[in-house]
C-alpha cells in the first residue's frame, strides 16, 4: 500500500509500472485504476494550483486505503495526488486497487476516488485570464 502527495509532474502509467514491479508477480489477477487529469478548458484557464493540508492529507489517504483493504478482498492499493502548480493535461490523481478478482478491484478503486474527492483535504485554485478563482 502506498500513498504519495507530490509537487512533481508524474506519468500515471509509468507510476503503475514502477509500483507493480515492486509487487509479487502473478499474485493479482485484476487491477482497476482511475486517472484524473486537468482538462484543457481552452483559453480561459491557464493553469491550476492545488493546495493541501500537509500531514492530514496523507493521513486521510492512508486511512481510506486501510478501510478499502479491510472492506474488500483486495491485495494492494496505490494513490498518487499532485499538489502545487500544474498545467492543462497534467495528471492530478491516480488511484489503483489490486485483487485476485475484478469485482473487489473495481469496488475498492471506486471507493477510494469517491472518498478522496469528497473528503481528502485538497483545494483547487484556477488561474484565469482575469485572475484567480478557488473552485467550489
Amino acid at each position, binding site marked *: 500500500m502506498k500513498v504519495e502527495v507530490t509537487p512533481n509532474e508524474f506519468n500515471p502509467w509509468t507510476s503503475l509500472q514502477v509500483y507493480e514491479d515492486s509487487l509479487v508477480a502473478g499474485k493479482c489477477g485484476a487491477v482497476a485504476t482511475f486517472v484524473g487529469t486537468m482538462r484543457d478548458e481552452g483559453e480561459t484557464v491557464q493553469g491550476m494550483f492545488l493546495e493541501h493540508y500537509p500531514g*492530514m492529507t496523507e*493521513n486521510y489517504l492512508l486511512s481510506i486505503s486501510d478501510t478499502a483493504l479491510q472492506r474488500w478482498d483486495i491485495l494492494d492499493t496505490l494513490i498518487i495526488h499532485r499538489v502545487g502548480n500544474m498545467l492543462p493535461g497534467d495528471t*492530478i490523481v491516480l488511484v489503483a486497487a489490486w485483487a485476485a478478482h475484478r469485482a473487489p478491484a473495481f469496488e475498492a478503486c471506486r471507493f477510494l476516488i469517491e472518498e478522496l474527492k469528497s*473528503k*481528502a*483535504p*485538497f483545494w483547487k485554485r484556477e488561474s484565469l485570464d482575469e485572475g484567480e478563482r*478557488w473552485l*467550489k
Partner: protein
Amino acid sequence: MITVKFFASLREQVGKGEIQLDVAEPLSVAQVWAQACDNAPLPSHILMAVNMEYSDQNRLVDAGDEVAFFPPVTGG
C-alpha cells in the same frame, strides 16, 4: 498553546494561515474559531479538523492540539 490553521479560500478570507492561541483551559473548536477570528460567526459550510482528523465544533481541545478550518474540498 493551540495551533490554529486556515486553508485555501478561507485562509485568504480570514487573512491568516496559522496562529497560536494561548489557552488557560480546554476550549471547544467553536470557541477556538471565535478567539482566532475576533468572534466572527463560524460559516456553516466550513470543515474542521483536530490533530489532522475531521471533528465537529463541539469537540474540546487543549494546549498542544492543532485545530484546522477549511472550505469544502475540491481535490481529485
